[in-house]
């Protein structure tokens, strides 16, 4: 086997050096009762080429593999990824390194993460960012836990019902054991979170909103921030689509205390939902409460600028059960990827692509409305929006699938009150020709 370098002679000689006769003898102290019986039941080894054929067969079994377009977002977005990002991130010095415990051998990773933290903080208008969480959902859960740590005596958090339903499920899993109280805030008729009942909730440590929210609607974060701060809770702003901040004001500018969300849009392929990137920022006054790894600037003994993992006294390997989080491995190369992606875009490019998303989504939304569809909510949206149709949309959707276009998902899966309303997503990757095909199918 090409991954196992030992020749038979070497094994013999090495066994002699360790005082064993056969490889099995290395395990002689393992009790019989613990032993594996027989051979592991998995397929016989495939050569590199047979493996390739096997994957080609699997790919044929992925029915969207040849789709022309998938106009669905909901937390996983199709964006163009420059080839340089993919090529650079596959350099083995980045890819096959461990967490940078030995900074002298990992300055590439460390400077790269420091740059990621900086660009992330700039994007979100915040003062401090960490080196990544697993994904947007667990980042939100950790943000809420962080608000409970900061506001030690409080036991409740409030979460907008317009936050991605899966994110709210993850929040529930993470907070369940702590016997914290999670209040869901209703969505108003404008598709924005209804904050009018905040005052009624006791012991509120943090309030979380998502913008653009699951319905694609841009929340009025500034107004929300004022309301949240007025009940002395931390304002947590989350997102699934960071491209929005190329066009819209950042959560930081609107007064958020913690900002977190999913960074997959920045250079990671969709890959059935992972790996993505949990982005996480906060005000610097909370930096010692932040979960996860952080990289900080320092100098070496000759005074040269360099980077190290820092604030580790928050972390599990030092603090153990008192750590701010249990996170250890995180999304390393994904954070570097996001930084490379942001660098490729630049400020000018980010704005331009964000605008394209907005323009293209608006084009489809307006055209479908002209065809008789009704927006579920009338507030401004970015690259996602929800429509109701006079007739059942499912047959149209199926016809489009036959043409290689998957358009929208039924919101009923997530909100039974919105059964039959469809969530669409249009990004810069969709050409007008595709959008026109959808429009004409709806029209016909």
């Amino acid at each position: 086997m090409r991954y196992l370098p030992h020749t038979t002679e070497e094994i013999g000689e090495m066994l002699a050096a360790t005082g064993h006769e056969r490889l099995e003898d290395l395990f002689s102290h393992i009790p019989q009762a613990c032993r594996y019986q027989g051979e592991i039941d998995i397929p016989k080894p495939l050569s590199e080429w047979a493996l390739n054929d096997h994957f080609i067969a699997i790919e044929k079994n992925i029915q969207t593999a040849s789709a022309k377009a998938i106009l669905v977002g909901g937390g996983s977005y199709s964006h163009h990824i420059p080839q340089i990002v993919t090529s650079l991130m596959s350099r083995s010095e980045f890819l096959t390194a461990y967490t940078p415990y030995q900074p002298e051998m990992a300055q590439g990773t460390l400077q790269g993460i420091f740059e990621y933290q900086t660009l992330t903080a700039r994007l979100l208008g915040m003062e401090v960012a960490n080196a990544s969480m697993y994904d947007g959902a667990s980042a939100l859960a950790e943000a809420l836990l962080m608000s409970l740590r900061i506001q030690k005596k409080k036991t409740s958090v409030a979460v907008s019902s317009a936050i991605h339903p899966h994110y709210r499920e993850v929040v529930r899993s993470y907070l369940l054991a702590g016997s914290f109280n999670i209040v869901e805030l209703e969505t108003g008729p404008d598709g924005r979170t209804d904050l009018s009942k905040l005052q009624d909730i006791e012991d509120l440590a943090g309030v979380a909103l998502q913008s653009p929210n699951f319905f694609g609607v841009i929340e009025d974060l500034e107004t929300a921030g004022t309301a949240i701060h007025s009940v002395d809770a931390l304002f947590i702003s989350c997102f699934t689509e960071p491209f929005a901040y190329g066009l819209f004001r950042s959560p930081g500018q609107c007064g958020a205390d913690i900002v977190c969300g999913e960074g997959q849009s920045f250079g990671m392929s969709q890959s059935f939902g992972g790996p993505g990137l949990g982005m996480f920022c906060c005000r610097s006054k909370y930096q010692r409460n932040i979960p996860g790894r952080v990289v900080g600037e320092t100098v070496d003994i000759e005074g040269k600028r360099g980077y190290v993992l820092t604030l580790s006294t928050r972390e599990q390997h030092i603090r153990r059960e008192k750590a701010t989080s249990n996170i250890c491995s995180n999304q390393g190369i994904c954070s570097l990827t996001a930084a490379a992606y942001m660098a490729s875009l630049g400020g000018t490019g980010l704005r331009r692509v964000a605008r394209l998303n907005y323009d293209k989504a608006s084009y489809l939304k307006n055209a479908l409305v002209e065809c008789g569809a009704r927006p579920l909510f009338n507030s401004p949206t970015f690259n996602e929006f929800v429509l109701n149709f006079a007739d059942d949309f499912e047959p149209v959707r199926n016809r489009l699938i036959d043409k290689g276009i998957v358009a929208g998902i039924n919101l009923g899966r997530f909100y039974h009150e919105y059964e039959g309303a469809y969530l669409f997503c249009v990004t810069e990757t969709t050409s007008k020709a595709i959008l026109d095909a959808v429009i004409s199918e709806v029209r016909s």
Partner: protein
Amino acid sequence: MTHGPGMNGLILDEPLLWEKGKKGRCGFSMVEQDVPEANLDNLENLLGDGPDFPDLSEIDVVRHYTRLSTWNFGVDTGMYPLGSCTMKYNPKINEKMAAMPGITTSHPLLEDKLSQGTLQIMFELQKFLAHITGMDAVSLQPAAGAQGELTGMQIFAAWFRKKGEKRNKILIPDTAHGTNPASAALCGFKPVAIKSGADGTLDVKVVTELMDEETVGIMLTNPNTLGLFEESIRDVTTIVHEKGGLVYCDGANMNAVMGVVDFKRCGIDVMHLNLHKTFSTPHGGGGPGAGPVCVVDQLKNFLPVPRVKHEKGRYYLEYDHPDSIGRLHAFFGNFGVLVRAYSYILSMGAGNLKKASQLAVLNANYVREAFRDVLHLAYDKPCMHECVFSDKMQHKYKVTTLDMAKRLIDHGYHPPTIYFPLVVPGAIMIEPTETENRDDLDQFVAVFKDVVREAKENSERLREAPTRTKLRRLDETRAARKPCLIG
């Protein structure tokens, strides 16, 4: 410096991203504006200016990351014997498989019938991992080992909640990885430390004493973080079960025992695996990983949803499990990592997985023997995949583990894990993994022995190390005292 690969060479400096660039440059290929510009009028108070990012050209970005990469060291560069981390070779073919367009473009929210291939990968991988561990059911959702632990702890909590029992202590050996107590605490459990026995493994008596009906059970690592197999595991699990408790096994060290140990037979109820260790997916400078959780039958309804099932030639997602602890990840975990592990298992087959474990253990024992007269051996017993030494014999030269580690860098090796596990002061934890060949082990041993010799003959040199890297020893205290986290 007679044996090692370390030497000087030209590498280039590179500023921070925003110290480069010029407004108006662009490294991104812009799409055509084929639709009319939309109206922004109704957005006024929502619109922003966009972030202050540097504008770079394509070659600027390429050179930036190319140069940064040259300051790094990966498994492809050289030996990386970082104990507990299983830094084995990461096959390139797995990267290619994970990058297949059909896979990278698949969307996680579509109906099952559009995602049969991706569901197939998950279903089969679940089955493979169940067979490899001996356990009954698997969830691939946890994004890393620590999240696997959290999942396991939540299953513990859900189990007792369902049984209506209020327990809140959990036994955790003092050799446990830091994530273990942290994960238990996240679930509201109170970790009770078990001191490991004189031989570095669990003392059945201590477990018997501590295990009671207020304790949810035990969370142990096997093989443990000293690289030793917990030989009394069956007794320990019996004791815990007798008191109505559950047993969690941190399976991050699975690389030592594939095809050798059956965890269900050991009495384990829940365990996680680190695919980014045993199953050869790259660590990416800190991630992403994947920490699937395996359970015995009686706990399978507590696993996260959705679960991937297969029936009549159709793969599907199943959500309806009222006992489930719910969701840990927005979608299905780090799917791309799962693809790599799946590809690895298919490449290896049963025989080679077992062989990999055997050779990993052989390599560790070989290294252990080689150092026994120059480094203090923490526990003088046959080891599994890794061996733990300390700097005790170097104290007299005022040379620490850190000094030796840094000096190894000068010789072109990534240092072993140091100062972990905490129970061994000045620990040096070496895990060669099975993909290192004997010649390379011999060279590593020779170099390390040179370093040990230097500790005696020229200790100043060690304290000054590393000298050949881009930067010398970094001031970590300063970084922590006045944190500068963004530029």
